């Protein structure tokens, strides 16, 4: 390995991170706010029992929520126990980890509007598609 070259590139990486630190801190602080102010009870109350509506609500509420993935499993498990459809719960669990309102400003600042919009739009559509495909395949298998 070219040692001086590695030091140089390492310092360049540190500088890159330092320049992005305020945006990164914003994303982390927003995550804390969303985690505390958007409660599991609040999310559960949005679901009505109508499959299509709930799937859409599952996708949106998962996208605006923040926190570790296991939280979405716990809420999803409770929703299933309360009679919610697998479609809605799958959409909720998947959008929790693939969509993220809090990180949009950071993504936009690094990749630009076109990339951010296209990626998130595709992710949103694919949450719906994957939810339907997963549940339909499960039904077929069982």
């Amino acid at each position, binding site marked *: 390995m070219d040692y001086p070259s590695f030091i140089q590139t390492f310092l360049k*990486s540190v500088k890159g991170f330092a*320049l*992005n630190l*305020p945006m990164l801190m914003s994303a982390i*602080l927003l*995550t804390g706010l969303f*985690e505390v102010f958007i409660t599991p009870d609040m999310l559960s109350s949005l679901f009505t029992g109508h499959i299509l509506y709930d799937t859409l609500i599952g996708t949106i509420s998962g996208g605006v929520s923040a926190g570790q993935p296991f939280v979405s499993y716990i809420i999803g498990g409770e929703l299933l126990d309360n009679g919610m459809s697998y479609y809605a719960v799958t959409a909720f669990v998947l959008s929790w980890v693939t969509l993220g309102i809090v990180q949009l400003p950071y993504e936009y600042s690094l990749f630009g509007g076109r990339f951010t919009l296209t990626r998130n739009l595709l992710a949103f559509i694919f949450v719906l*598609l*994957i939810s339907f495909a997963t549940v339909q395949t499960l039904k077929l298998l069982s």
Partner: protein
Amino acid sequence: MKTRTVNRKQKLNGRYLLPLVLLGYALLYNYYPDKTIEALSKSLSTLLHLLPVFLLVIVLMGIFTALMSAKRIAKLLGKQSGIKGWVISVVGGILSHGSSYIWYQMLANLREQKVSDGLIVTFLYTRAIKLPWLPLMVSYFGYAFTVLLMLYIITGAIIQGMIVEKTSLHK
């Protein structure tokens, strides 16, 4: 578009958003002091949890740039990388740890070195597979559901990458 990125890189990113977020905290503290403190505490805990991953990403970025020329990176992960590029992207996404935004800086650097947008999109989507949490997912939703969801996530991630390749977001 490229010029805009270069100009933006030299400035402090988030210099307007961070004061706004802090102002939001200050305002919320007036109405919900306990919850705001809890949010701040959760944010700090997230930051501490992510610190080792930050370091890992910084070191990885340094190693990538030092060991691989832009030309080699473009060959491995560029538009002409073929199946190898897709495999690296999928496996990398699954193995990467922590929140997505930690990896943004590294991905943006790789993008400047001609890594294809499709592979970046695929990498980010396969991050939905959280290996450490799979046992918990199985306990809540069962094996069949978990395996199917993982397979569909990988398939969906590759399809999204291919769609992005066709649209050529980064010229």
